[in-house]
């Protein structure tokens, strides 16, 4: 409801930031549409937090510019930008009550007192904390503090809400609950969210679009399914989810392992020749008896089970191919009533369509 109807809410255009001679953000261009939930995903040092600080105005780019609803804000100080930030460390003012924290931004804008009271109440209700009105933020749990920080930012109706790893200081259980909470709030208020995280699961669960960053540059931009099912580089494939890697040699629509086994390549990679890296995800693999027939849609290789680990909802099976390479299969509880046994030889099956093929270039390995 706060989004304008024409043009993007936020645009990075060729943004570069250099710290002591090193480019921590490199020529990043990105357009965020009104109401989108964008996750910027990357390992530490990938420049994702710096990108967010540039959007907030805590850092200024050495090259490029930032447009906020079409207006160039590249050199504006933070207090003159219509964006708000939620920090990893919550950054609640410890000397103010929860309500005063939430009212802080409105007071700076000289909003009338009665209107402030109304809006603060509304914002605290949105995050489910209306009963903590008078509390000191220091008495709240981490999850509650982060919800106050969220209310404090959203009450100002920013053009874009910037979230800097807001959940990474929380316990796993609370983090999962907050993911759902954040998504609900996003849907309820309709504000554009730019969310920075190093946690791929978080990005997959919450974001409309995911931006994968690596060494300061954008590596891939796409929906969760695009990023997970069709990563454009081995880095993305490895960083988002687990992956089994096989080294092979491609020729006429198939890749040959060192022991002669054949991996059929998906249509888009049929043209490849020479050394390639084959990837497939552990959970897309099935184990079958050694004498099972490999279907026309499937790839299959023989392997020996080296360990079986029961993990509750899933069971992890580690296997060794006949040429020595190690792969892992993760199957959910429904399809393995009978656990396979260590030492046994089985057939590993996966669909040709979920086979990833990359250049074997050593520089792309991570």
């Amino acid at each position, binding site marked *: 409801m706060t989004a304008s109807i024409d043009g993007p809410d936020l645009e990075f255009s060729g943004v570069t930031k250099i710290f002591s001679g090193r480019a921590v953000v490199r020529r990043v261009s990105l357009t965020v549409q009104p109401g989108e939930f964008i996750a910027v995903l990357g390992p530490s040092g990938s420049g994702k937090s710096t990108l967010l600080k540039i959007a*907030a*105005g*805590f850092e200024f780019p050495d090259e490029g510019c930032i447009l906020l609803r079409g207006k160039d804000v590249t050199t504006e100080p933070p207090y003159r930008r219509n964006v708000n930030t939620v920090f990893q460390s919550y*950054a609640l003012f410890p000397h103010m009550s929860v309500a005063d924290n939430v009212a802080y931004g409105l007071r700076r804008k000289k909003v009338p007192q009665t209107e402030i009271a109304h809006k603060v109440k509304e914002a605290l209700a949105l995050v489910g904390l209306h009963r903590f009105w008078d509390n000191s933020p220091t008495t709240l749990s981490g999850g509650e503090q982060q919800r106050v920080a969220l209310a404090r930012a959203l009450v100002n109706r920013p053009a874009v809400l910037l979230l800097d790893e807001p959940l990474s200081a929380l316990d796993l259980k609370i983090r999962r609950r907050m993911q759902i909470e954040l998504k609900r709030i996003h849907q309820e208020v309709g504000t554009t969210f730019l969310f920075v995280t190093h946690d791929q699961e978080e990005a997959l669960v919450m974001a409309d679009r995911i931006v994968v960053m690596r060494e300061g540059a954008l590596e891939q931009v796409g929906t969760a399914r695009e990023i997970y099912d069709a990563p454009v580089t081995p880095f993305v494939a490895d960083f988002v989810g687990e992956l089994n890697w096989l080294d092979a040699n491609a020729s006429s629509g198939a890749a040959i392992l060192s022991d002669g086994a054949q991996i059929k390549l998906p249509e888009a990679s049929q043209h490849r020749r020479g050394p390639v890296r084959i990837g497939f995800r552990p959970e897309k693999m099935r184990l079958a008896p050694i004498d099972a027939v490999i279907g026309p849609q499937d790839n299959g290789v023989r392997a020996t089970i080296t360990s079986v680990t029961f993990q509750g909802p899933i069971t992890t099976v580690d296997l060794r191919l006949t040429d020595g390479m190690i792969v892992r299969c993760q199957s959910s509880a429904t399809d393995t009533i009978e656990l396979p046994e260590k030492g046994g030889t089985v057939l590993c099956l996966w669909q040709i369509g979920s086979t990833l093929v990359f250049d074997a270039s050593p520089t792309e390995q991570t």
Partner: protein
Amino acid sequence: MQVGPAVALFLVFLAAPLTVTIGMSLFRTTIFGVDWTLTLANYAKFFSEWLYTDLLLKSLRMAATITVVVILISFPVAFWLAKIVRPGWKITLLLLIFAPYWVSYVIRTYAWMPLLGRTGVVNYVLMSLGIIDAPLDVLLFNEFSVQLVMVYIFLPFGMVPLYLSMDRIDDNLLRAAADLGSTPASIFRHIVLPLSAPGLAGGTITVFVLAIGSYVTPRLVGGPSGIMFGNLIADQFGASFNWSWGATLSIFLVTATLAIVALISSRVSLNRIFLQP
């Protein structure tokens, strides 16, 4: 396990000095020695003459002036140290601030005399520049010189607590305030000032207590007009050998000091001042 040593600490550091001082104040010292009859005569004496209360009030005023000046100088320096200086340099600069403390207190005080005296450096420079014709006498041996020297000597005690308070303000709080629309001035007023209150109170109390109890500085650079209550007390023990009267005067000084401290700490809890965890 805990009670024994705690009681010992209490006796050695609080009960014993207090008992001795109060005890002494209840007797009278005559020229023939101590008169061992309990009496409140010393207390009555204090209120019978304006001289004593006047000197006490004057000393409180001087200590307050010194404290205010120290804090006003300390605030920007502490902020600069805590928030602008790179971490690697902080320790060096902190050590630098305390550098004069390697030198005895007395020497530090005396060092001002060749600066401020009639034939001192300041007068020499001012006369050379033709700003004054005759050497100024107001630079030394009065209230001004006492306060100037004490401000210099006590500056670190104001600066360090403030620095410690500001150093623990999360930088993200300042960012968050800017993010929510605060200008730099508003950030100072709404975030930095309230959050450095413990350091402010700690520095204020420390400097005030040190200043009000001073004896050496007023004696060395104070002259007759720069004398403080501490000198009056010391004279009873030294020259006059009137211990019981000295003890009584001490009690008044301590009471006045504690009253001021209580006033300050009623606004910021002592725990927050001294245990910034």
